[in-house]
């Protein structure tokens, strides 16, 4: 590594880029402070922390943009054990988060169209399609993506990542580390934990080879420790959703989950969530709800419909309906207790085996039931996401059982998390209205 590379990186990011982003944030905070609250809105104004979320994401993408040649870049799945990579100084890029940004900015259709033009079927996951389209065409709403030096795919969310990262490895001609996590029905077998642990250990020399440095165990433990603190904070924030009125909705959670996915293990992520928790507590103290005149509280299951955020929050908010909890955002909180920095490999093996998507349909149903009780929910919206089979298979029975055995109204809403072609406003409005009516007064 040359000194000039380091200099260029720090000047472009920390000195110039971060400063510009910070000024932008301060300006937007100032504007928010003086902006009058819209009386006609059905929802509370966005959390003040939102400008910091934007700042963190912007900085992260900026770091990526100028990472090369100073820092090595790893592209990773959302469930990948990233602490090893963090400790080795990699810049981490999450194609799924990038997919979400494309979804929110409504560029996913155009970018995934590039993949479809190259022969990729519209029936494959729209995150993957968007990412492939971006890799093939260079199109992205964030300026420029840093090409990977290494890929890490963990099957604890789906098998789709296996084929998707297979494409990336072929396209970018870089090594792919696969962490295969056997599915859990009741509890993880000893040989499954051992298997994952061995793979994590085997990943170290490969990642070290690419990084050009040796893994420092103290750093690894530190990242695990900080990951755990950040996850604990995230869990506390989500738990505040149990208050009436709920201070943060699932929509807020979707927006503010990026740091816990992309930047866990860093001190600034801990500071960020500590500040967010304070703000949420302030809302509770002042009786501010995410939805004005909260009447009904629902659980959201599956990924968000990124391209229909405002439409959904307004349509529900108008009728005093708040999404007080979500199985999706919960996924990044529930693993925290399993992380033990003193046993980095063994505890990571255990934790990364246990995301909800790597567990049986019965476990998810029980999680939903527990959440319904904890958050005093009146019903469930199950987003049947045609892109995400692992999350969606089982929802039809889960819905039937929620209704028949537990008397919980549940709606199955067909859509796609990124692809707008499978969503129509009119049909969704009709469905939601009928469902809200069913929830009663």
């Amino acid at each position, binding site marked *: 590594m040359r000194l000039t590379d380091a200099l260029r990186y720090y000047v472009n990011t920390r000195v110039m880029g971060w400063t510009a982003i910070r000024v932008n944030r301060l300006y937007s905070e100032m504007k928010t402070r003086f902006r009058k609250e819209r009386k006609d809105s059905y929802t509370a104004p966005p959390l003040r922390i939102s400008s910091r979320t934007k700042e963190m994401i912007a900085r992260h993408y900026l770091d990526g943009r100028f990472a090369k040649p100073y820092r090595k870049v790893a592209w990773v799945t959302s469930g990948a054990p990233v602490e090893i990579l963090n400790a080795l100084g990699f810049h981490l890029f999450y194609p799924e988060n990038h997919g979400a940004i494309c979804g929110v900015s409504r560029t996913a259709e155009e970018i995934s169209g590039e993949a479809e033009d*190259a*022969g*990729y*079927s519209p*029936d*494959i*996951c729209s995150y*993957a399609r968007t990412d492939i389209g971006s890799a093939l065409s260079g199109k992205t709403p964030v300026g420029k993506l840093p090409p990977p030096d290494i890929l890490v795919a963990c*099957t604890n969310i*789906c*098998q*789709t990542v*296996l*084929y*998707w990262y*297979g*494409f990336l*490895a*072929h*396209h970018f001609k870089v090594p*792919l580390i*696969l962490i*295969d996590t*056997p*599915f859990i*029905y009741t509890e993880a*077998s000893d*040989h*499954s934990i051992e*298997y994952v642990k*061995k*793979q994590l250990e*085997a990943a170290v020399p490969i990642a070290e080879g690419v990084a050009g440095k040796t893994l420092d165990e103290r750093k690894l433990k530190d990242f695990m420790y900080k990951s755990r603190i950040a996850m604990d904070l995230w869990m506390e924030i989500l738990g505040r959703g149990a208050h009436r009125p709920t201070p943060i909705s699932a929509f807020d959670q979707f927006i503010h989950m990026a740091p816990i996915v992309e930047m866990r293990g860093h001190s600034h992520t801990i500071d960020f969530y500590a500040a967010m928790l304070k703000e949420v507590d302030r809302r509770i103290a002042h009786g501010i709800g995410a939805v004005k005149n909260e009447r009904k509280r629902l659980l959201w299951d599956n990924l968000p419909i990124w391209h229909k955020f405002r439409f959904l929050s307004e349509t529900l908010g108008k009728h005093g309906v708040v999404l007080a909890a979500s199985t999706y955002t919960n996924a990044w909180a529930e693993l925290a207790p399993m992380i033990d920095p003193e046993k980095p490999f063994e505890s990571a093996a255990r934790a990364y085996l246990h995301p909800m998507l790597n567990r*049986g*349909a*019965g*476990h998810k*149903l029980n999680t939903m039931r527990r959440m319904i009780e904890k958050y005093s929910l009146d019903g469930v919206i199950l987003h*049947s996401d*045609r892109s995400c*089979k*692992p999350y*969606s*298979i*089982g*929802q*039809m*029975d*889960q819905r039937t*059982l929620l209704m028949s055995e537990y008397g919980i109204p549940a709606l199955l809403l*067909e859509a796609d998390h990124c692809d707008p072609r499978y969503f129509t406003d009119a049909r969704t409005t009709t469905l939601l209205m009928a469902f809200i009516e069913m929830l009663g007064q």
Partner: protein
Amino acid sequence: MHEALTSIPCRREIIRAHKESGGRVAAVLPIHYPRALFRAFQILPVELWGPPEIDPQYSKAHLQPYVCPLVHNALSYITGPESEVFDLVAVPHTCDSLQGLCSILTDLILPRQPVFPIYLPRGRRESDAQFLANEFHALYRKLEALTSLSPSEDEVMACILREEDADEVLAELNRKRKFLPLCQRDFYHLLRSREYLPAERFCELAKSFLAKAENESRDKGLPIILSGIVPEPMSLFEFIERAGGVVVADDLACCGRRLYGPGEDNDVFRRMAKSILSAPPDSTRGSSIQERADHMVRMVKMSGAKAVLFYCMKFCEPELFGHPPLRDELNKINIPTLVIESELSEASLNPSVGSLELFLETILCG
């Protein structure tokens, strides 16, 4: 159908005979699983590749329309009256859809039979082989609890050796395919009888055909390679034949991707694991695109194929991701390719027949 093929007993007969002899029968979903282990417990594995032409009415109440037809049909079949003959269901975690099916069967739908998941690792590293061996060991314990039998290592090894013989005969059938007095559909009918015949019966039958091998190739038509999951409906072969093509090799999950070599290990569980991991590249087992492309290019060169037909199940992600880069690699060696989608029924295949004819015709004329 070739006269001699009429002597292949059908699934029903085989199941009945096995049950009459006091054995149990397992319905096994695709793709890879330890046949020998089931046989050691006197359980006959009978594979369910769909089955085709099933009314998916039942599954529609449990699975969304964007789940592949194979999984839809399998669920309808397992929960339907015809599956009563099965004593257990085994579901390898081949893909997200089969994993999801196994999960809802186990936790939510609860069919009559016990359901046994089999997790297959996605690599070929030593850790993968050891994990798979441990999985098979765990399966041994479950089958022991189900049947109250405890086959010894020698007994399991005897079953393994029998399956290895059958695998060798299967490979020989593939090597000699063009010299056998069978049309394409009949040839695949013979190959696929391995999906339910006991290994020893399969060997006997296959050897009787190998003995009839001729000296001259019977292949007439444009040589092609067929890639995909399962060639259902089997009328596909007639369409190919009518369009002037002949399948000279395949990369089908139910056939060519299961040409297992012997396991080469004295431990029975490791031997079964290593055998499965020795199979040709497969999208569902984490083979890289390059491995798959190299394998296909090798097949093209060895078989003299002039085109590749990707016959894909609707919504099958493992396959869909592979098509564009594999087609690119094949194009580099001037091998034209075509992708057609099907849903395990004649009705879904018919609209693609025109493009298949056009594809082969263009190559034949060119």
